[in-house]
């Protein structure tokens, strides 16, 4: 080597000095390769470093300016958001994440197809359609995704559409989970307080019979508090179930008259027709006619109902 190591060291020191006003991280990055570079240049055997590269101060100026850093003595430019983003992008973990993300893109395309199918189903109804719709939508989404990768123009449009789809999906999800029990969503709504539950499920209608097995109509029921016994609409039933209450003379609906008049839409016809619910088939028990055993004395009489007078509920013996 014709150029002594000292010349390299001296050049290096002067460059470092000219970069002294920079933050240590920036300066170290710039100096990182410099020493090996100087060694290679020195090995060219082409004259001194200064004649080959120019004065160290000039080298330092050119180095920092082409690296996008402020010039010596100049005011530090306000780090704009793009610059700061660039700095963050340099962090090793961030770089790892950023380099991995593109691999997820095809997964997003698939998910997007499924989301669109689900959105259509929740708008139009027919949960069973979600699978065939998804089978149609996913390849479409993947195809569009690959096209938007190739053509940069469609990329921005695709981003807008993606944001729209996600927003719609979130909104639909919120709407479903907050739906009132009267609507049927994908999950059956739990009925509110006071819902009667029988052994086979929630009670939505009551069919009273007389002792002799005659079905009764317009029977008014009250509980031990004197409150009318009301039933909730069927949370598992088809949407569009209609309940028809009888009306009192003062105009209010009588909700505790049983059996209640209920009808559900029959979707097998076009247009759907409301079909009145028919009573279930029951076999009323036959009452025993043996000597009545002395019953435990009833401590209180049936409570006085709040509304209109009730006809006697004691069946007359036949």
């Amino acid at each position, binding site marked *: 080597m014709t150029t002594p190591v000292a010349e390299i060291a001296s050049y290096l020191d002067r460059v470092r000095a000219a970069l002294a006003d920079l933050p240590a991280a920036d300066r170290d990055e710039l100096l990182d390769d410099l020493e090996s570079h100087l060694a290679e240049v020195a090995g060219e055997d082409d004259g001194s470093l200064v004649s080959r590269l120019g004065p160290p101060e000039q080298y330092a100026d050119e180095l920092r300016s082409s*690296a996008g850093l402020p010039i010596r003595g100049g005011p530090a430019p306000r780090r704009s958001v793009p610059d700061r983003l660039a700095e963050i992008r340099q962090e090793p973990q961030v770089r790892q994440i950023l380099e991995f993300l593109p691999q997820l893109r095809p997964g997003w395309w698939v998910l997007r197809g499924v989301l669109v199918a689900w959105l259509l189903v929740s708008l139009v109804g027919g949960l069973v359609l979600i699978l065939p719709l998804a089978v149609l939508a996913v390849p479409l989404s993947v195809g569009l995704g690959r096209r938007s990768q190739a053509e940069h123009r469609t990329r921005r449009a695709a981003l807008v559409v993606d944001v729209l789809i996600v927003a719609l999906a979130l909104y639909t999800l919120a709407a479903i989970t907050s739906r009132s029990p009267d609507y049927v969503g994908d999950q059956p709504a739990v009925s509110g307080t006071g819902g009667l539950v029988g052994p086979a499920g929630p009670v939505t209608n009551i069919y009273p019979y007389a002792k002799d097995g005659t079905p009764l109509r317009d029977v008014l029921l009250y509980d031990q508090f004197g409150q009318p016994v009301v039933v909730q609409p069927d949370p598992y039933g088809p949407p569009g179930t209609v309940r028809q209450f009888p009306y009192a003379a003062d105009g209010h609906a009588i909700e505790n008259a049983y059996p209640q008049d209920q009808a559900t839409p029959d979707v097998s016809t076009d247009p759907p027709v409301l079909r009145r619910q028919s009573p279930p088939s029951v076999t009323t028990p036959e009452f025993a006619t043996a000597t009545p055993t002395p019953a435990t004395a009833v401590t209180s009489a049936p409570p006085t109902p709040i509304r209109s007078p009730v006809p006697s509920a004691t069946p007359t013996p036949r």
Partner: protein
Amino acid sequence: MDTTQLLKGVLDLAVLAVLAEKDGYGYDVVRRLREAGLDEVGDASVYGTLRRLFSAGALTTYVVPSEEGPNRKYYALNDRGRVQLGRSTAGWTSFARTMNQLLRVEGEVA
């Protein structure tokens, strides 16, 4: 004609093009640029440009150990860098075409 001003504008593109051909370390990239005909390109400019492209996320680096002398830090294009190369090339081609047309018109005598 003084090409240093012209070069400043397209040095990024030139460096990306060199790296697209093959990964390189700083000194190597300078040499290849000069061999391609850009003999006025400065070492410091190339190093600074490599740093800046790396900060912008267009390049990755890796170190190759060497038996004689210090380890070398190699620069390579990543996907983002390839995209940037593509875009810049398209921009350059279009610009060059425009300039060429302009110059032809200028040179034409009625």
